């Protein structure tokens, strides 16, 4: 027998109470692990592949509003711009819109694969085939793996935005290439097809694009170029808003709300509740043991050792709950990263900094919740504890 054994026995003297406490801590850390894990992945996704000299020109009202394709030439003529391309959201799905939605853009093959060459790594001859084939489509590796698509296969890709003159929503596209990202962890859950194929077969929105991607000569001139682009289209029916790629990605995520703020609030609320529950339970648990603590002190256990044991209980409690919560969150994130949800964010995982922050939080929770009962045990007078007056 040693102090750790005593801590363990004291902690589990009322197993149901302890298990319920561990479960409540577990839930708090599960929420923490999942939300922070997803947030980290989202932030990483906005950073991935963002080139510092690449900017996005979108409609000033909202990026979901279109821009005339004629803008491309005018943007290209602005000093400092060395390349332009465009992309249009297709609202793609495969057979079942409820089950198989994915990222799909109509693009100009030659310029798009050139400007985004760092994100779209194609095999030999595949880029040329994409440029050549009007109905060609290039598919990201993870998306191709998910559906088992192969090069040469013709796929009926549907849109929840556009329809064809005959009323059908499906476009037959031939897979001409399967691309990888710059890194194995980069998301490759998208497909790109020829804009002309969409443009000539859609009954509305012709000759408009979603956003324009601009490559500048240097990141140092980004601000100047952005201002020049926006000034060019000021007071027109399609005013523009030009920002660098990272800013655009962050703004895109903010459409769903300030995720950092929401996550912080949810995690804080969960921890505040746990702090109250665990804190008050530990205080009453130690109060129940007043006599036993008095006996231990009578036998010669110094106050600091009793304090250490009570703190040890709260630390062990938080540690177990935290470890379980973070562990299950890690497994869940790993599982999610293999699902279609995870494909959206790239590699979802419990990173070392998140796990370390979680365990640090568990330690802090243990210290804070255990401090009051531990100090009460430290200060406990033997005579009062044993009622010997």
């Amino acid at each position, binding site marked *: *027998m040693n102090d750790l054994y005593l801590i363990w026995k004291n902690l589990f003297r009322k197993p149901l109470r302890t298990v319920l406490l561990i479960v409540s801590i577990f839930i708090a850390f599960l929420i923490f692990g999942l939300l922070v894990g997803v947030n980290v992945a989202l932030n990483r996704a906005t950073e991935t592949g963002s080139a510092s000299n690449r900017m996005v020109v979108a409609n000033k009202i909202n990026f979901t509003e279109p821009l005339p394709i004629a803008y491309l030439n005018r943007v290209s003529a602005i000093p400092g711009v060395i390349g332009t391309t465009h992309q249009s959201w297709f609202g793609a799905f495969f057979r079942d819109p409820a089950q198989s939605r994915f990222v799909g853009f109509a693009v100009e093959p030659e310029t798009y694969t050139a400007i985004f060459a760092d994100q779209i790594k194609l095999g030999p001859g595949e880029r040329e085939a994409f440029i050549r084939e009007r109905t060609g489509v290039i598919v990201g590796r993870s998306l191709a793996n998910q559906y088992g698509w192969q090069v040469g296969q013709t796929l009926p890709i549907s849109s929840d935005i556009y329809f064809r003159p005959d009323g059908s929503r499906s476009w037959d596209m031939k897979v001409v290439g399967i691309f990888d990202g710059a890194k194995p962890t980069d998301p490759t859950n998208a497909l790109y097809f020829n804009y002309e194929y969409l443009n000539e077969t859609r009954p509305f929105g012709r000759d408009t694009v979603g956003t324009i991607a601009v490559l500048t000569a240097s990141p140092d001139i980004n601000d100047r170029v952005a201002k020049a682009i926006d000034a060019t289209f000021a007071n027109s029916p399609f005013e523009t808003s030009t920002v660098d790629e990272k800013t655009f990605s962050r703004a895109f995520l903010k459409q769903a709300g300030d995720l950092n703020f929401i996550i912080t609030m949810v995690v804080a609320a969960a921890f505040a509740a746990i702090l109250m529950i665990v804190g008050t339970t530990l205080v009453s648990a130690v109060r129940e043991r007043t006599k036993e603590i008095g*006996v231990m002190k009578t036998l010669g256990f110094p106050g600091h050792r009793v304090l250490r044991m009570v703190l040890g209980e709260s630390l062990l409690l938080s540690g177990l709950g935290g470890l379980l919560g973070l562990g299950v969150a890690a497994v869940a994130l790993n599982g999610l990263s293999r699902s279609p949800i995870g494909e959206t964010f790239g590699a979802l995982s419990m990173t070392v900094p998140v796990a370390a922050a979680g365990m640090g939080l568990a330690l802090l929770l243990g210290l804070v919740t255990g401090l009051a009962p531990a100090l009460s045990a430290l200060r406990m007078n033997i005579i009062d504890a044993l009622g010997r007056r």
Partner: protein
Amino acid sequence: MTDFIRLTDVCKSYTRGKESISIFDRLNLVIPKGDFVAIMGPSGSGKTTLLNLLGGTDRCDSGQISFDGERIEGYSEGQLTAWRARNVGFIFQFYNLMPILTAAQNVELPLLLTSLSAQRRKENVLTALKIVELADRARHKPKELSGGQQQRVAIARAIVSDPKLLLCDEPTGDLDRSTANDILSTLQLLNRELGKTIIMVTHDPEAARFATRTLHLDKGQFVEVTT
């Protein structure tokens, strides 16, 4: 027998609200080594306070308390705690065993304060349990033992670290006559065979007969000694 415990002009009072209640006013007491003393007296006479002072769980306001030549009244909290662990074994009326631990683990508790190895602690625990004839109940939890058996475990816990002094506060107050006599016989054995100095507070004249002498305390002073 040589002087073992000596109280000289000990004063002790408690404050209750704004009122100060004097428990001892210049109390003197000498207990020789190897003595078995019963302390009797009405409620409020100061029996428990005396035991608290002797065991170093309370402090006197003035006077001297010496234990085997060692003055303890000026000790700090930490020094008193360490002194208690080395020299005093406590036996309480309601046993005060840890319900989460087995009999053997309860007995082992005071040994966690020593530097003995786990094996040595185990041997000492077994020896203590054998002395109180409970070696076969070592793995039982307190709730699985009778009142008398629990008190025996408490005695084993009190003697396992081989203290010189045993302080017993109504050790048979919660037991029937027959069981009480068994417990008292065990205490007598510890006194006679192992030379432990025992100070026992009791209300029970039958229990006091097992001691070598009885001190009668009333209003903070010893009024009578029965041998």
